């Protein structure tokens, strides 16, 4: 709301600096990189769902589209700068088109969910069936279920031989995440963001006040897709291969679970949910006693039953209880922080 944005930015920067410094001491940067990427992906859905009220069952579609766009463009161009830009623009344009059809068609939430789900499924099926040699874009073969390996990975802009990998790649991803996070913060503080929250709360009223709700939802949807696309491109660089699995419904469902567990309507929630659950999945992947999807499912059920608002809002309430009631806490005006991120 009207709280100073400068302090918020400072907090984010301090928090990010601490993480960049401390986390590599505990977890390998290779693993951390993918956690950061998932965090960005969680943030992308957290933005459009938590603040725009758009429940998208197909956020993985934009993630996969970003990854494939990067891979295909990188093979054709041989340098990573333009492919990175395309990996943001192509999912955004695709989402703008899809969003315009859905929002101007005045679809209700349920149909919106169904359509985004089906689009993801179509992309998954399509990419899966492109194994034949006739499926070629420029020099890049789509490769069907085998995916696309062996593309040019991230390099210093202008110098295709100076690859960015290992620790430096972790720092690149983290800085990208911090920039995206700051942009999202700025967006939510701006009139556009406040109006988006208004639309989440009451679409009819916002349109009766003269706002073009469909246009605004389309733009927000496209912004979410752009962030997911960037995460996809970073993921492609991290894995050095893209496969149809990126488009899978399992991936989409996971993103939704990250948001629910972390806390909708906050910026940190979906990010923390993504990082926490992805790390848990990674740990569980190292043993074979229990299937990790079972645990993810169990966590979702427990959260829906006992902590329906998610981790971050719960911590915020706890904080308020322990410090707010004492009456000595000086920042009473910040008590509603959780709701606005």
């Amino acid at each position, binding site marked *: 709301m009207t709280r100073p944005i400068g302090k918020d930015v400072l907090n984010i920067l301090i928090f990010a600096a601490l993480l960049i410094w401390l986390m590599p001491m505990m977890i390998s940067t290779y693993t951390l990189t993918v956690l950061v990427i998932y965090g960005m992906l969680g943030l992308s859905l957290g933005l459009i769902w938590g603040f725009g009220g758009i429940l998208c069952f197909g956020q993985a579609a934009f993630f996969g589209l970003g990854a494939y766009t990067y891979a295909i463009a990188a093979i054709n161009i041989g340098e990573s700068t333009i492919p990175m830009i395309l990996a943001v623009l192509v999912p955004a344009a695709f989402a703008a088109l899809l969003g315009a059809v859905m929002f101007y068609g005045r679809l209700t939430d349920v149909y919106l969910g169904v359509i985004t789900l089906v689009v993801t499924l179509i992309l998954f099926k399509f990419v899966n069936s492109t194994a034949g040699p006739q499926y070629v874009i420029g020099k890049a073969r789509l490769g069907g279920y085998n995916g696309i390996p062996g593309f040019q990975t991230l390099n210093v802009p202008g110098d295709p031989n100076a690859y960015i990998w290992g620790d430096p790649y972790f720092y690149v991803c983290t800085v990208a995440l911090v920039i995206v996070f700051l942009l999202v913060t700025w967006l939510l503080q701006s009139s556009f963001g*406040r109006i988006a929250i208004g639309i989440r*709360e*009451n679409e009819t009223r916002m*349109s*009766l*006040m*003269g*706002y073009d709700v469909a246009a605004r939802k389309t733009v927000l949807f496209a912004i979410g897709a752009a962030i997911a696309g960037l995460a996809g491109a970073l993921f492609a660089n991290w894995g050095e291969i893209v496969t149809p699995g990126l488009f899978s419904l399992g991936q989409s469902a996971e993103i939704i679970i990250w948001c629910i567990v972390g806390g909708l309507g906050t910026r940190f929630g979906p990010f923390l949910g993504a990082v926490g659950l992805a790390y848990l999945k990674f740990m569980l992947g190292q043993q074979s006693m229990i299937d990790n999807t079972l645990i993810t499912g169990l966590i979702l059920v427990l959260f829906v039953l006992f902590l329906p608002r998610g981790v971050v809002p719960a911590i915020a309430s706890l904080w308020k209880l322990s410090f707010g009631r004492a009456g000595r806490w000086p920042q009473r005006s910040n008590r509603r922080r959780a*709701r606005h991120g």
Partner: protein
Amino acid sequence: MAETVLETHGLTMRFGGVTASDNVNFKLKARELRCLIGPNGAGKSTFFKCVTGLLTPSEGQVFMRGQDVTGWQPHQITALGVGIKTQTPNVMDALSVHENIWLSARRFHSTVEARERAEAIIDRLALGSIARTELGQLAHGERQRVELGLVAVSDPWLVLLDEPAAGMSAQDVDQMTEIIHELTRTAAVVIVEHDMQFIRSIAETVTVFHQGAVLMEDHVDRVMSDQTVRSVYLGKKA
């Protein structure tokens, strides 16, 4: 002679075999206060929704300040300078009173000016003590008052109110009446209402709807004493 701000020609709305609005011709002058009354199912709300763009009429046209707005979206109609309040309070529950009103003011003004206008309206409607409270925690009467604030802050020249007094206490209704009178200084106001007492206290000209069509249109006193209107309301034969 005052300018005509709202006019409908042969406005008809059919839902399947039911004609909810039947060939309605309606005219409203600038700064006029008009009440639409009629028993349940008389077609008041359908007429209201056709005028506000929530429904597209099957036949006929709607003009606002001479412009044909038939089939326009609600956001296009409100962008002309029309304020609309729906039957049930349509407000942003998780946001504060101030944020709600600011959002409405922001549509046509800069960020800073919107804040000033929101604060002015909050003062005018005596909402100062609850300005930072979320709408979801307010009583029904207060929510209605905030919604009127949302409408008033955009400086409309035409205000359409669907049952503004529904479910309100006598004191709330008095306040509401005062606000509406203030609105008529700059805007024409159309009120769809059931509450006869409220109508008596506020109305001058009244349009009576019955079975989708306009039954009569006259001064409130003459309408109230009219035998046909009474029988329509009480369900008796004239």
